């Protein structure tokens, strides 16, 4: 392998480089026609700056084709647009044709993408305004519908290497947006309030220290502090109170309970200290305060020479602000994953070719009714369950059954929704749509499995419950103890205990670490969609893999060549002839040859495709056949080799009658190059690895053996798989399931933690807890390692914050902590906790993927043009 990398997507390019694009006068290497087209489009628009400013490489691009253009034209229909397009500006204005669409853009990697998109689109005639949001990847495009159709804009987005999907701003999305805005408001009120109150607090402290502040100013500052702190407590801290109230109602001590007690208690006490003097006109509080132990000596740390106690407005505001900041970071991480998960569901613009008045038109799949006639082109998904009425083909049902070889279908056979048509265009009569299809049945199984999903207890909750109980107990003891010694001080000391033990750092300890770890995993290519993944991974002792598409790449490749020619022709020459024949077929098997042979040296003529049998053609002056053994050698005198996989026989003939066998080709679904190493790593970590597949026994057995998996189960239906993991769970095991197909979906939902591959079916991706976007299994093992590190960091954080709180507790209980000490300590301990969590962001030891050269056929990988 060389170091040549694609200028656009920076993936390695194998020598010799075939594609080049001119950028600023220099030809730059390109990995595929897709990237080349995109780069040329960017340069043609005068937007080369993108390459100078980008901080992340772009995604590899697939080719544009006619089909995509047709599909995009569906978005020009008014009834499709009503979901995500609205008129721009008020209707009263004369710009009747201006519309605004909300789109979700896929493929945005850094800020330069935003620049590129905005500038490229705004250069189009008819496009008025484009704004792209880097955090949410949402684009707002305003255009003149009479000048340019939406489909052209969408096509332009595809041309520069991104994908656009309608962003249906549904209720959930509106909710997220609202939540985000409300949170920023709360944060602002708390932040501005905290700053101002702290300024006043400095005046109060310095006045108290030098003891020369007239009472009137002290009271004035206190009153204004109260005015500012009130919205902070009532508005900004409201979520804590609500959560605490909910916790109390369900009798569960969470972190919000002590937080609320501290904020509420300190605030009420401060209010009392500020305003009671005006209600108790006889000054009885003064006398009590003067009699208290704190006002006797100059060594007193409380400034209650002539007051009714201390005010904590500054602590209250700052504490609220800090906690809100922590919660806000958590909220943003949660929103980002929720969006990513939702983006996955938005990714299918389902359409199909339906017969209307004798013509086939592209219509949304939702329009289909039973008895409609539908045409399905090779490579397309079958839109509904139905019966094949004309044409014969083979379909790939791997997503539904796990069977990796395409299955032949003749007229009259049943076709399943979501399977992929492989060979030839076919027509089918729809029998079932929507809820009644087989896929929908699997979805129902999924919902059942989700209800039974075992919950994973969160470590922070456990600590919080314990901690809260302790603090409350200590507070009660302190109050009881002090009321015996100095009853007039008992309330203030108890309060200072509550403030000092405010579990600010404690409540940040876990979320800060989890947020950092989630972000780090995302950059590695593992998207964590549900919160319990990181905390749950450490308890996992069973890892279950699906075979097709998970441990294997889910695409056919040539794995063995057995010559029967007694050495007359080299294997390379035989392969050349086979590839020349297969070049005339669209079948996935043919593609396996295409990727194995770098360049064709021979040409086949008079090629005939015998459906379901094989291919026949002339090369030079010999006739050749390749395909099923009984087709290539009708005499039937060759024994098929014993190894599993699909064996193709190539034969040669001079007279069309006597066929001489030449060579066997073995076609298998190739394993991912890193699979064996990952499984070895998992086993070294002490996890039991199981292979669970819907595929036939010999194939599964061979895969398990070559990967060193001791436990495997073949020919399992989705029900079997679910039952298998539920049995394991009832034995007390914690199960992680990794899969990709629709048939894996119920298991993914039922497992303690589930992970879908990046190229998995949409359904599998949305129902999984995490998605392996990069498709590299090693990241799974890395995630386990990271969990161990995360756990260590969480423990350090908990230890530190608990230690701080426990050390401060006796001091506060003894009445030796001033509010400013408590505030400083709180801030410091929070900062230490956050800084410690950020260490998780530093790249640790990452296991490199086995370099591609170790994989025999990797250098022949499809480069996007597939």
């Amino acid at each position, binding site marked *: 392998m060389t170091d040549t990398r694609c200028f656009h997507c920076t993936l390695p390019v194998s020598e010799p480089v075939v594609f080049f694009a001119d950028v600023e006068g220099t030809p730059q290497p390109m990995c595929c026609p897709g990237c080349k087209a995109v780069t040329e489009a960017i340069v043609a628009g*005068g937007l080369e700056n993108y390459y100078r400013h980008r901080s992340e490489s772009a995604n590899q691009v697939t080719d544009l084709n006619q089909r995509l253009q047709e599909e995009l034209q569906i978005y020009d229909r008014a009834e499709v647009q009503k979901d995500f397009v609205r008129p721009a500006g008020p209707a009263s204005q004369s710009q009747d044709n201006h519309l605004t669409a909300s789109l979700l853009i896929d493929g945005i990697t850094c800020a330069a993408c*935003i620049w590129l998109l905005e*500038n490229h689109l705004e250069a189009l005639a008819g496009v008025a305004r484009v704004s792209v949001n880097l*955090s949410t990847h949402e684009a707002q495009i305003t255009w003149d519908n009479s000048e340019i159709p939406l489909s052209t804009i969408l096509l332009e987005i595809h041309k520069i290497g991104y994908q656009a999907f309608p962003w249906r701003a549904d209720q959930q999305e509106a909710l997220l947006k609202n939540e985000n805005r409300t949170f920023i408001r709360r944060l602002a009120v708390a932040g*501005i*309030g905290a700053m101002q109150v702290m300024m006043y607090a400095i005046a109060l402290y310095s006045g108290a220290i030098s003891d020369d502040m007239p009472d009137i100013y002290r009271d004035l500052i206190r009153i204004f502090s109260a005015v500012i702190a009130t919205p902070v407590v009532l508005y900004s801290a409201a979520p804590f109170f609500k959560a605490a109230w909910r916790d109390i109602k369900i009798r569960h001590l969470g972190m919000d309970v002590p937080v609320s007690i501290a904020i509420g208690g300190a605030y009420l006490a401060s209010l009392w200290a500020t305003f009671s003097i005006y209600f108790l006109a006889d000054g009885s509080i003064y006398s009590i305060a003067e009699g208290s132990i704190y006002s006797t000596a100059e060594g007193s740390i409380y400034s209650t020479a002539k007051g009714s106690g201390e005010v904590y407005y500054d602590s209250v505001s700052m504490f609220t602000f800090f906690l809100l900041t922590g919660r806000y970071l958590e909220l943003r991480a949660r929103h980002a994953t929720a969006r990513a998960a939702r983006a996955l569901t938005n990714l299918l613009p389902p359409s199909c070719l339906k017969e209307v008045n004798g013509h086939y038109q592209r219509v949304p799949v939702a329009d289909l009714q039973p008895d409609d006639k539908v045409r399905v082109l090779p490579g397309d998904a079958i839109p509904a369950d139905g019966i094949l009425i004309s044409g014969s083909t083979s379909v790939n049902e791997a997503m539904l059954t796990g069977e990796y070889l395409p299955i032949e279908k003749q007229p009259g056979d049943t076709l399943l929704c979501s399977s992929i048509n492989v060979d030839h265009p076919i027509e089918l009569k729809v029998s079932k749509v929507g809820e009644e299809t087989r896929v929908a049945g699997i979805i129902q199984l999924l919902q059942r499995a989700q209800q039974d999903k075992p919950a994973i207890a969160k470590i922070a909750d456990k600590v919080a419950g314990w901690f809260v109980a302790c603090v409350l107990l200590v507070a009660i003891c302190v109050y009881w103890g002090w009321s015996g010694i100095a009853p007039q001080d008992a309330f203030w000391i108890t309060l200072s205990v509550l403030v000092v033990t405010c579990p600010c750092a404690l409540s940040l300890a876990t979320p800060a670490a989890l947020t950092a770890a989630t972000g780090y995993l995302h950059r590695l290519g593992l998207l964590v969609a549900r919160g319990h993944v990181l905390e749950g991974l450490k308890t996992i002792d069973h890892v279950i893999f699906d075979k097709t598409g998970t441990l294997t790449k889910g695409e056919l490749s040539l794995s063995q060549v057995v010559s029967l020619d007694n050495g007359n022709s080299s294997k390379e020459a035989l392969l050349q002839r086979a590839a020349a024949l297969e070049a005339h077929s669209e079948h996935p098997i043919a593609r396996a040859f295409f990727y194995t042979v770098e360049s064709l040296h021979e040409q086949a003529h008079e090629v005939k495709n015998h459906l379901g049998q094989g291919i026949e053609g002339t090369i030079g002056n010999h006739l050749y056949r390749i395909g099923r053994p009984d087709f290539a050698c009708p005499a039937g005198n060759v024994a098929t080799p014993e190894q599993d996989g699909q064996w193709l026989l190539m034969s040669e003939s001079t007279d069309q009658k006597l066929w001489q066998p030449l060579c066997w080709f073995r076609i298998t679904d190739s394993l991912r190059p890193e699979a064996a190493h990952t499984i070895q790593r998992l086993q070294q970590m002490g996890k039991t690895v199981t292979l669970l597949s819907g595929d036939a026994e010999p194939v599964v057995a061979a895969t398990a053996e070559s990967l060193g998996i001791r436990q495997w189960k073949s020919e399992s239906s989705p029900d079997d798989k679910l039952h298998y993991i539920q049995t394991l769970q009832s034995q007390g095991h914690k199960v992680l399931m990794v899969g990709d197909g629709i048939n894996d979906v119920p298991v993914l939902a039922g497992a303690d933690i589930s992970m879908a591959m990046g190229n998995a079916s949409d359904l599998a991706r949305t129902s999984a807890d995490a998605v392996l976007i990069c498709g590299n299994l090693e990241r799974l093992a890395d995630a386990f390692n990271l969990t161990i590190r995360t756990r260590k960091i969480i423990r350090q954080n908990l230890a530190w914050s608990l230690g701080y709180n426990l050390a401060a507790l006796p001091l506060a209980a003894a009445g030796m902590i001033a509010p400013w000490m408590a505030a400083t300590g709180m801030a410091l301990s929070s900062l230490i906790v956050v800084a410690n969590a950020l260490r998780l962001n530093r790249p640790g030891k990452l296991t490199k993927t086995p370099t591609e050269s170790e994989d025999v056929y990797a250098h022949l990988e499809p480069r996007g043009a597939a």
Partner: protein
Amino acid sequence: MESLIILIPLALILIAVAIKLFFWAVDDGQFDDLEGPAHSILFDEPQQIPKANAHDHK
């Protein structure tokens, strides 16, 4: 010290105005994207590209 009696309420009014402004900015959507604008300032102004007719791109 007497000036405090004017200055402190004045500060309170300023805070109220600041929060009001901030709320307006939030409602205006200025805080919806906290990452993009930080980078976009670094990009040069695009050179004036003549508005191409979209159909030429096809």
